């Protein structure tokens, strides 16, 4: 269509920018105009209308952009995945606990009612007031915030809000508050706060009592009373899973979904490839949209470092076994592996008694990637784990054959 080389270059540039913007949003559904992701934000803003249309049509996710923030209100394709917890904004990135989740929501409720600025001490007071709600008391939640560990919890919540851009620190710091020596002052970014909830319905309008019903109602679409609407809902939910999740296994789908996917697979994956550059890996058991750029993910495999290495070695062990393995068996395996490879591991990982923790980390990582599943008796490999076949690669001699080019410098 474009015979003119300049137009071609511009088209290519446009497509590349659009892809970058889409990937940035998938990686970070809330992008702020200032801070680390300012470049990505600008890119998204520039392509906002195209992205908005794509996401709305294919996933039903709405994209909101203004001068301060861009927010893709993602709804997961499956509601049963527990491997995306809220995490501390510290290096340790520990998953949130029950108390922290509750504190987070109470803090958000207080911010929502509050002024444009708030001090941590004042926020704490309001949270304590809200926590007196009889429903919370019945569930056994109580905050007085005069114990140090409670204040640590609140500080962790505030740090998460700071990292999300809901709060901006003006003066003081959380440490001083935790130790009881001082206070901190924040600006409240009301527009970021306003876009924080992604659910289709406000939770306060949901009256279901069972947990699963509550989740389902949060994201419920309007009545699907025509074939066209049902197909659209299916297309959206399948696209969501392909866009977000590492592997889509056919055995998790309903018959209707499987039928639709079988018919529309080429179309669905082509749309995703066009936007994101992800490549479909279609196998008998399912589809994985794999990433040649290796950065559209929060969990990597294979990965460097002690935990990455242990994960890789245990994956090899699990892939080779036909039956589920117990965590005890995996622990024993780690002990053997430590004898062989321990020299490369962090010192703390070689200490006796660390096996259970190493196994837990590795299994969590493999489970998050859809490569294993936890069962009542242990850990079962899932089909996609076979794509690594770690052992066989060793036959390659350094410098003689093609090497995986991913994420590494040239061979020595």
């Amino acid at each position, binding site marked *: 269509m474009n015979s003119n080389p300049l137009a071609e270059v511009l088209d290519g540039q446009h497509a590349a920018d659009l892809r970058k913007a889409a990937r940035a949003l*998938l990686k970070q*559904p*809330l992008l702020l105009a200032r801070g680390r992701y300012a470049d990505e934000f600008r890119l998204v803003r520039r392509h906002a209308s195209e992205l908005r249309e794509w996401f709305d049509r294919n996933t039903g996710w709405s994209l909101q952009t203004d001068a301060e923030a861009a927010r893709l209100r*993602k*709804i997961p394709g499956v509601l*049963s*995945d*527990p491997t*995306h*917890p*809220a995490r501390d904004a510290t290096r340790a990135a520990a998953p949130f606990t*029950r108390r922290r*989740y509750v504190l987070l*929501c109470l803090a*958000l*409720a207080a911010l929502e009612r509050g002024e444009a600025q708030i001090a941590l001490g004042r926020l704490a007071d309001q949270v304590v007031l809200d926590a007196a*709600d009889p*429903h*919370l008391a019945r*569930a056994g*939640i109580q905050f007085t915030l005069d114990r140090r560990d409670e204040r640590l919890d609140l500080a962790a919540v505030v740090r998460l809000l700071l990292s999300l851009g809901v709060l901006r620190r003006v003066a003081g710091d959380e440490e001083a508050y935790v130790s009881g020596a001082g206070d901190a002052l924040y600006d409240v970014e*009301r*527009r970021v706060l*306003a876009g924080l*909830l*992604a659910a289709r*319905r*406000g*939770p*306060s309008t*949901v009256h279901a009592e069972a*947990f699963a019903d*509550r989740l389902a109602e*949060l994201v419920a679409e309007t009545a699907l009373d025509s074939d066209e609407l049902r197909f659209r809902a299916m297309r959206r939910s399948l696209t969501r899973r392909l866009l977000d999740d*590492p592997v889509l296994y056919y055995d998790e789908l309903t018959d209707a979904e499987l039928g639709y996917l079988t018919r529309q697979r080429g179309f669905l994956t082509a749309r995703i490839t066009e936007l994101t550059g992800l*490549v479909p*890996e279609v*196998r*008998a058991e399912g589809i994985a*949209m794999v990433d*040649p750029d290796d950065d559209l*993910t*929060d969990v990597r495999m294979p990965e460097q470092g002690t935990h990455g290495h242990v994960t*890789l070695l245990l994956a090899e062990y699990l892939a080779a076994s036909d039956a589920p393995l117990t965590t005890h068996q995996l622990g024993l395996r780690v002990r053997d592996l430590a004898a062989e490879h321990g020299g*490369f591991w962090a010192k703390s990982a070689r200490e006796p008694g660390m096996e259970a923790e190493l196994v837990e980390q590795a299994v969590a990582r493999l489970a998050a*990637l859809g490569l294993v599943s936890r069962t009542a008796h242990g850990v079962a490999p899932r*089909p996609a784990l*076979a794509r*690594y*076949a*770690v052992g066989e*690669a*060793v036959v*390659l001699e*350094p410098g003689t054959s093609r090497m*995986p080019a*991913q994420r*590494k*410098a040239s061979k*020595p």
Partner: protein
Amino acid sequence: MTATTISREPLPYGFSPFAHLTVQNTDLYRQVMGAFVVAKERFAVHLRPEDVYTALPAEVRPPDLDALVKALESLVGWGNLRADPDTARVTAVEDFYRKRFIYQLTRAGEAAEEALGVYDDALGRRGALQAVALHDIITQLRALLVLAAEEQPDRAKIHLALDVLASRFAALADNARAFMGSLQQTIDLHDVGEEVFLAYKDRLIQYLERFIQDLITLGGRIARLILELEDAGRIEPLLRAAAAREAADASPEEADHAEGEAYQRWYGRWTGLAAWFISREGRESQARLLRGRALGAIPQLLAVVRSLNERRAGRSDRSADFRTLARWFAEAPDDDARHRLWRTAFGLYPARHLTVDAGTLAARAALPVPTATPWADAEPLRISPQLRRTGSYERRGRPRRVESREESRRRLAEVAAKQAAETAAARARLVTDGITRLSGLGELDPASFGLFLQLLGDALATWRPGMRHTVATSNDGSMGIRLSALADGGTAEIRTAGGAFRGPDHLIEIIDLTDGGEDR
């Protein structure tokens, strides 16, 4: 209908002409009075009921003439109108038997209307600052300058010029006050309906832009003229002359101090005018305050828009939403459930994908794997043996250094500062200090010449066929130029480093609007 006897007793306190405001049918009464006021402006003193009837707008017009006559009689009763027997010829018998009156405004009624007019004005006025007033002030100040230069200025002319100046200025100051007041009202619009606000917003912003522009361009010129008049005490004799003329009318017993008082009055007005346009002795000029106020109003308006948007965005009560979520998190059966709830409600999770390397991709492109192949049977992804053995890839090259742009940024800042200084210097060199000939400019350095060309361009852009004289302000409002064509057909030449610039000679005056008179 027969006329009833009308009580002419005034209500207590003597404010009965306002009584029609507090009874039923106030609208009709006010419209009727309005018709009389309009008629009076056209020098029609008496009105018949039929005249009033046709003058009324359709929506308040009573169904028949009798109802109107009744209203007129009530107004007569309150003392707003006077009724006189109508002696005109009639053409119908029943008209003859009807008691007929013609009506006119009483003095009390007229005064009440005036008072109500002021009241409406004060409440209804949004405030406006007319550029016209500013232009008039400039004209009068120029006239005063000319008068001050005369040997024997005409007292009457001086008085007239000062009088016009004072009245235009009073109008301007009134408007400005109303304007400031209405700005505050606008900013307090937080509570009004959304549509009202949004409709008003665009108009206000447009108006503010025009207003600021007027004030900057014209205000600077006025300030300069004022300074010029005050320079070497030129204004004082003018004020004295005006005072003397005014005092000439004073009665014999007042004659002694009348002139002194009149002078004080004129002096006060003059200082008021000067204080309006020039900041001095640590007090900011009114014009500057206004400008700041107008500029400040824009972000405040935007804040209102933002709060409206937030209000609109909140469909359900989000605070309640968050409290509900807190309860759900507390009631969730286990940590996994809580993580699922977090993911579903907040949707802040990143996408997660397996990776593939270029080699594997290329191999697959060459030899596609059938889609029915199980994962276990397909060619696997190859893992670096080094990674498998040691847990890390081969030695990595040093990370690319992040380029520091600090240096270039500083250089840019320096260049910008230098350019600004050069422009200021060029501007200073270009100012002509009075009227001169183009040919008298002589030699210009490149910076000044560039600026001069721009200014000349701005001036010539206003030039129309047949014009002998033009005044223009540079695009950035920093300089003014006055250009008059000369009849002698001479040629001007301006030498620059890059060559000579030639053209027909003109009279030229270049004024720097940014220094001196302009308050900055």
